[in-house]
């Protein structure tokens, strides 16, 4: 075992393409780093920026958002909405001092298990190079992370 930093990454997948891609990667036994924790949404357009903020405030070092390729959304055009949100979210988080490289957007169709796995692997290495974020771990500034009350609270639709 080495002592290298293992980033915690939260991945959001859409039910129709990118989750199927992850599934395919699994059934095809494609290896990729275990650092990513996947959360399935019905669509990348369901991604409320609150989810990303909550992940970062709860200790994630990076967030990966995946969806169907442009033009292939199961809900017609919601992945474009996700794209716009992510671009604005990235700019906002830069104001908080977050490196833009900690938020990654990946389009992957249900047939692209290989692509999904290689994107995860690349992202893990990028975040590893950026180092730990510590937003969830307080650093030496007390009560910076979300208090217990917020972590228990459910994120409303």
């Amino acid at each position, binding site marked *: 075992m080495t002592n290298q930093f293992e980033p915690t990454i939260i991945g959001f997948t859409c039910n129709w393409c990118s989750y199927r891609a992850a599934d395919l990667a699994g059934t095809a036994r494609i290896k990729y780093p275990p650092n990513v924790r996947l959360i399935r949404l019905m669509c990348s357009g369901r991604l*409320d920026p609150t989810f990303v903020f909550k992940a970062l405030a709860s200790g994630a070092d990076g967030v990966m958002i995946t969806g169907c390729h*442009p033009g292939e959304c199961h809900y017609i055009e919601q992945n474009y909405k996700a794209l716009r949100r992510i671009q604005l979210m990235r700019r906002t988080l830069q104001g908080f001092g977050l490196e833009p490289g900690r938020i990654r957007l990946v389009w992957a169709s249900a047939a692209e298990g290989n692509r999904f796995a290689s994107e995860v692997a690349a992202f893990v290495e990028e975040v590893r190079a950026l*180092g730990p974020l510590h937003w969830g771990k307080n650093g030496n500034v007390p*009560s910076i992370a979300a208090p217990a009350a*917020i972590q228990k609270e459910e994120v409303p639709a």
Partner: protein
Amino acid sequence: MTAKPKFAMYWAASCGGCDIAVLNTHEKILDVDANFDVVFWPVAMDAKYKDVEAMEDGSILLTLFNGGIRNDENEHMAKLLRKKSKILVAFGSCASEGCIPGLANFSDSREIVQTAYNTITTDNPNGIYPMTSYNMPEGEIHIPTILPVLKTLDQVVDVDYYMPGCPPESNQIAAVIDLVIQVVQGKAELPPKGSVIGAGDSTVCDECKRARNVKKIKSFERIWGIVPDPALCLLEQGIPCNGPATRSGCNARCPIAGAQCIGCYGPAAGVSDYGARLISSFASVLDANEPEEIDRILDGLVDPAGQFYRFNLAGSLLRAGVPAWKKEKA
């Protein structure tokens, strides 16, 4: 005759506008005097901290606490007033969610002190910095110590009610005063603990009289750069108006007057992160599907973090804007 219930109001890290807003209820302030014994209110009367310390625990019926918790003096007073009060209200945006002083959470406390005492616009030739304690011939003296981050009142003590607004609208304050008086007289019940009082649950858009259509914007505009249509939704005209996520209760004063909502009433009911909700609503109205085009439109939105967290940073999910590497150095 039974003694009147006791009333206190205190300011921590605030501008004093909340106190002015209370006085701005005009003759309603006489009702406060008629129904309450005002025991502590630094802006209006002379009282010492030791007077409060000498009071019996829970002896003050209602304390309106405005201002955020910036230093250990604020924190001491928050804890003291919590102990002495039956009902503690986080009064105004600062106490509820950090407000403008909370924007300091984008920087660490060292940067704040540097900016205040050692920039080119500061006349401080000898580089004198405040010391939290200092030995005088007469003995050691102390000034309050700045905390690493500005905290909201409920991050320090238990809060019974929240009253948003920067400052809360006078008619809303008057309504709350009326309610408490009725409760004292046994004619009304208090709302459940933790409620937001003196405001609605919906959004500013809900109260706004401007006409709304399907929003599709090609660029963001600054309020001074265009002459907005007086009857049409401001966001629809590209002016970044925070109405969609902001709590109602102000009668949409700003947008109706032609200025965009800046969000002083805080997040609407059910919104757990104000900025995140605004990111959703702003991104939804952009009329672009190509990354480059989206970026071009977003270039018009200068300082999105400031736009979305002007009042809410200290109360937000990511409340501290200090990146990890800086935090470790500090």
